[in-house]
Each structure stands twice: as C-alpha cells, then as structure tokens.
C-alpha cells in the first residue's frame, strides 16, 4: 500500500511517502511561513522526485489535530479532498501521537505538548506497550497545572515537542520527585514518516464527515452554549 502522510498541524510542515512500512521519501521544513502556499508544491515535488503519480497513492493519512486551527484546516482539507476526488482511503491520526511515536521508552509515560497560550496546553499521555502506543490520558486542551496534577500518578515521564521546553522549569518544580526527561533536537518536531506508520495501522474513516480535532469550541460557540442550555439538534448548515 502506498501512503501519503501530511502534517501541517503546527509550524513544522512534514510530508512523507511510504510503501507499506518503508519510507520512500520525506520532507520536513520548519521554515514554511505559510502552509497554504507551500504544502501542494511540496507534495508535487516529492512525488516527482520519486517518479510517482498522485494516482498511485492508496491512502492519505493526515495529522488531524490538535494544533493551529488554520494549519489543521489546510492539511485536513487537502487530505480529504485528495481521498474523495481520487476515491482513495483517508485516515486521521492525533497530531500529539505523531510526536510521541518515535519515543522509544518503556515503562515511561510519554507526554506530547503543544503550547495553547495563556498557560494552557494541548496534550495527551501515551505508554509504549508491545511496541504499540497506548493512549492513557486523552488528547485535550487543558491548563498546564491541571495536566501536571493528572500526571502525578506516574513515576517516569517523557515530555515531547519543541513547546515542552517552554514549560520545563514549571514541570520540574511541580513534579520534583519524578524522573523527568525532555525530547531533544529532531524529536522535538513531528515527522510524517511516523504519521504514515501509524496511519497504516488504523481503519479508514468516512471522508465527507471528517474534520479536524480542534479540541476546543470557538469562543462564540461556548458563550452561546452557556446561554442556550438546550441542545441544538437542528442542522446549522443547509443546502439551498
């Protein structure tokens, strides 16, 4: 099976082509100022370099969130349109799990983190068991302090991601009696190869209904929900 994996969920843009578990080609850039401008030319380039046509891709795998809302939408719209228009498979993988995937530590809880500003983070917790990643704290938008509280049950902790370093001081103070490690260098950034590997193991999703996992309502929606307790079952978008 040929896979095209796309991660545009944060500043890093990473794409990879896989033949089953084997890497065919990949490119990761941290200089992409604008994923809307760079994503498609990078995909076209990568395919060209390995002499493949987009029609040879059997499955599109995309980092579905959390992350930057705009970044997620560019990646997810691109992947879902590819899958739909070429009648191929679509798989979404947690953007946090992609960061956790290359961390080879056993008996250690792996915590990928994205800064969500104002002392909030997007984070989840994963354990490596039988060479599989097991999610032990679901991906969520959470105040850093609350996350650290939840982690106090574990003894060995491995924080992953470029943003994890921003919180290093606080983490070491709050969890002072734990064994704590932080990712370094290339493990700070998502690599689409790992995204592809994880996407290979998952079931394809329904293409039309697939949307990013923002893990956060818009401010307008949460304010509206506070005032309007009753659930709104009517469809909010209508064909005219």
């Amino acid at each position, binding site marked *: 099976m040929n896979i095209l994996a796309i991660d545009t969920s944060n500043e890093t843009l990473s794409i990879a082509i896989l033949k089953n578990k084997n890497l065919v080609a990949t490119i990761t850039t941290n200089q992409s100022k*604008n994923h*809307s*401008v*760079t*994503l*498609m*030319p990078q*995909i*076209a380039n990568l395919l060209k370099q390995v002499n493949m046509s*987009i*029609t040879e891709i059997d499955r599109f795998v995309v980092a579905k969130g959390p992350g930057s*809302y*705009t970044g997620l*939408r*560019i990646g*997810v*719209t*691109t992947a*879902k*349109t*590819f899958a*739909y*228009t*070429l009648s191929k498979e679509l798989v979404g993988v947690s953007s946090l799990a992609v960061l956790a995937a290359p961390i080879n530590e056993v008996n250690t809880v792996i915590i990928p983190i994205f800064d969500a500003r104002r002392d909030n983070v997007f984070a989840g917790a994963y354990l490596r068991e039988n060479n599989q990643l097991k999610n032990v704290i679901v991906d969520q938008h959470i105040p850093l302090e609350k996350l650290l509280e939840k982690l106090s049950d574990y003894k060995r902790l491995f924080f992953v991601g470029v943003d994890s370093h921003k919180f290093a001081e606080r983490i070491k103070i709050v969890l002072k009696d734990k064994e704590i490690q932080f990712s370094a260098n290339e493990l700070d950034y998502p690599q689409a190869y790992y995204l592809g590997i994880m996407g290979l193991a998952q079931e394809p999703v329904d*293409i*039309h*209904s697939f*949307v*990013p996992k*923002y893990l956060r309502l*818009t401010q*307008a*929606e949460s304010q*509206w929900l506070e005032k*309007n307790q009753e659930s*709104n079952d*009517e*469809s*909010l*978008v*209508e*064909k*005219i």
Partner: protein
Amino acid sequence: MGNGEKKRELILAFESSCDETSVAVIEDGNKILSNVVATQVKSHKRFGGVVPEVASRHHIEQVTLCLADAMEEAKVTYNDLSAVAVTYGPGLVGALLVGVASAKVVAYAHNLPLIPVNHMAGHIYAARFKSEIKFPAIALLVSGGHTELVYMARENSYQIIGETRDDAAGEAYDKIGRVLGLKYPAGKNIDEMAHEGADTFAFPRAMMKEENFDFSFSGLKSAFINTVHHAEQVNEKLNVNDLAASFQQSVVDVLVYKTERALNDFSVKQLILAGGVAANQGLRDGLDELIGKYSGIELLKAPLNLCGDNAAMIGAAGFVAWKNGESADLSLNADPSLEFEWI
C-alpha cells in the same frame, strides 16, 4: 464528438469566501449544470453575525459534500472538465483557504488548470446568466462587505472607479437591523418593511456634492441610531416601517446618484447590478428609473437567486479568465483583501 461539433467547455468552480460553501459546474461560461450552495446562515444567526472561525469550520464539513453533489448533479466526470476555478479573495481568510486548498487538490489530482477568481468579478458575472455582457460596461456592486463601482473596458478587465469610504451598504443594513431588533441577516426584512413605509425622516445623503464616485454610509447609520435612541429616551414611538423606508431611500439615493454620475462620465453599453444587496427591491426599482433616462444603455441585473454568494458566478467569471489565459500554480494562496485596480 461528431464532425464540426463544438466541444463544450466545463468549469468546476469553488466558492467559500464568507458563510456559503458552494461548488458548481458551468458550461461555456453561461450555462449552469449544477450550483450546490450550503449556507451557514442558521449557524451565524446564533451570534448575530458571521463568526470567522465558525465559518471556516463549517466550510471544511461541507466542501467535499458540495463537490460530490455538484459533479453528480451536472452528470459529468473529471475527464470532461476544462479547468477548476476558485475564489481566492476578497473574504475571510480562514474561509477562503478551505476552497483554495480543495480546488488546488482537484486541479492537481486531475491535471487541470487552476483559475484564480476575484470574488467581486464573480458577483458581476452572476449577470452573465441573464444575458451576454457588452463592453464597455459599468457594474454597481453592492454586498455585505463591498460597495463599489467597477468599469470594464473589455472582457476580463476590471477597474474600480469608486467605492465606499466606510461601511458597505449591506453592513449598514445589518447594523440598523440590530438597532431595530431584527434577526440577522436583516437586509430582506428591512427591504420589505420599507415598502410598507414612507421616507419621512429625511436622513442625510452622504457625499452627494463631492466630485467622485465614492460612497459613505456611516453618517446615515449614525443619524439612524441617534433618531432611534432619542425617541427611546423621550418615550416616543416611531413608525418602524417609515424608519426602514427612510433609511433605504437614503441608501438608494446615494447609490443611484453616484451611478448616474458614472454613467455620465463613462460611455458604456451596459450597467450591471450585482452583489448580495442587488436583490434589494428598492435598489432595483431605483436603477430601473435611472436607466429610463438613458436610451443607449442597457440595465443588466443579476438574477435574484444568484445575487448571494455562489460558485456558479465564480465559474462564469473563471471561464472568462481561463479563455484569457489566466492561471495560478499550486502555491496559490488566499488573499483576504484582494481588490481590483483603481482606474
């Protein structure tokens, strides 16, 4: 294809600049094979106006569904298409990006040229579904985000000769609608109320004395709000239909006056009325009256059902751009403040 039989040119078009997701298939620039529009108006009604992040989220829910329906209704395959057109601005950046990303994928996946379309050119070309556009022409574009006069010397040429200095006309409608306690979007409601009332308040007509083609509606909006607030303070009950009629008459007078000025300065064959507010009956009547003064100029009004945002109009404008050799590469980005050049 038989001998001498002309190949039909099909454009697949995407529009997602504001709160409508739309995909259409247009034949030869003037025939709608499909025009699927998913509107989010119900969703934004909850907030009293369009919330950009909510709009962007709805677009991504809808975009492949609209694409599927548009291709199916048109009964065409990707092999039948000549090009893919997409609105790349002006509009809400997050909303535009969904349409742009999707259109780029379809163009690349099926080896089709990608045609970038200015949303305002799309609005003008909604009129193409009524009849042919004859050049030179002037278009009066009136919508929620824009109010401008555009000169078209020839096909695929658009130059601004005047625009609003502050609020767009449609924006003014929404704002006074809020003051009157009307549900968003209020334009249609105010138009209907205006027909039940009379212009009794004599609101200001802005910039009528200035030697240009620009508009302004903020003074009118303030005068309206002051009138309503003052009445509330002294416990006076105002006739809302008269308020609506007075507001609308002021808007129409300014639009018609500046359009008349443009028709006197530029020698044109057609006056085109387009944009979301072009569905306004008061404005349509006002321009009918104006055009009666000119024997050589034809008034071409965008069909009522194509005045709002839709991909059919993008397909019509995209067809013209494509014929004129325009195309974009895969780095095409959304341009939220895209504007025609000034003359």
